[in-house]
């Protein structure tokens, strides 16, 4: 990791990814990625996790299998991802073509005091996903590399695993709604219409 510097701003990176979201369904991992997505703008098909650490990617899997015609994005953090590393194997085997998991990797546990995480010590999540069998994997350290990730994240056959390396600069706290029942009902109504309440 020594040859790289963390230069990307997490808010700008997440906002850039979501500019091209189209009708994608989005799950966010708890902590900073949830705040980043909220800062980019609320949407009824955003489902924000405020807990369930380690569950974001596999929640995206279940959603992607249920909605094979819709793109499903998971935006989560490196700490949340390493808590559920088995998801790399589970998703590789299930192999949903419409799922993209994007890890916003600041190499820190941002909510708990910015302690260094596993990726700071060189653990390579993209390499692990590739070895697990994800057909498309990529990592972005720069704006140009982030730009080049967009087709993979939004349209290429998945499952897609992408890491965006971001710096640890402080960003304003932006909190989305946190009522789980309200979030799940509005998500389902936006997706399923009246069938959401059957």
């Amino acid at each position: 990791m020594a040859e790289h510097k963390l230069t990307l701003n997490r808010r700008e990176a997440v906002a850039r990814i979501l500019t091209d979201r189209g009708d994608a369904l989005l799950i966010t991992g708890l902590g900073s990625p949830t705040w980043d997505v909220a800062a980019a703008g609320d949407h009824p098909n955003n489902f924000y996790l405020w807990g369930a650490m380690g569950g974001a990617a596999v929640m995206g899997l279940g959603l992607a299998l249920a909605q094979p015609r819709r793109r499903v994005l998971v935006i989560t953090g490196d700490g949340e991802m390493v808590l559920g590393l088995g998801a790399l194997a589970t998703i590789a085997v299930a192999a949903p073509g419409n799922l993209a998991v994007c890890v916003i990797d600041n190499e820190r546990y941002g909510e708990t005091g910015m302690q260094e995480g596993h990726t700071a010590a060189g653990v390579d999540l993209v390499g692990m996903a590739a070895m697990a069998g994800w057909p498309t994997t990529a990592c972005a350290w720069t704006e140009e590399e982030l730009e080049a990730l967009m087709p993979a994240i939004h349209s290429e056959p998945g499952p897609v695993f992408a890491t965006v390396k971001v710096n640890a600069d402080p960003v304003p706290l932006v909190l989305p709604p946190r009522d789980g029942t309200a979030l799940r009902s509005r998500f389902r109504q936006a997706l399923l219409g009246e069938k959401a309440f059957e």
Partner: protein
Amino acid sequence: MTDAATEPAWPDEIYGVLKEADVEQICYVPDAGHKVLIERCVADNEITTVLLTTEEEGVAVLSGAWLGGQRGALLMQSSGVGNCINMLGMVQECRFPLLMLVTMRGDWGEFNPWQTTMGQGAQAALEAVGVIVHRVDDAALAAETVQAATRFAFSSYRAVAVLIGQRVIGFKEFAN
């Protein structure tokens, strides 16, 4: 374990209940007690099966499935119950329906002492995080109990676990 000639009817009956209830995703960590049901689901083109590395993944997968309009069920052994606890907090907070079918170890006539703590603690652990628990100790009642649990889960938006006792499954024989 039982051989083909004496294969019990309850796994097929549960499979029928799940089909009747439009269950389309089955998440599982393999267990001998669920062997037949897993085989039925894997062979069914209308059911998507997800092989998990750990049971808590299934709690999240099926939350996502229901967000997307599909019903599912999570199959596991009682030793997997403890792995699910924190993830079940999301299910409670969001009122996601969740159907868990748990085959018991550390239960009736257990041989392996290492199964005992989680097996004996499974019901209390589930109830501690708000999961509604039904127990089955008579094979003849397995299907109707799963049917009731399925209705409870998906009509009342609750996490419901059916614990299928070792008395139903039979002893695991270690001797040849």
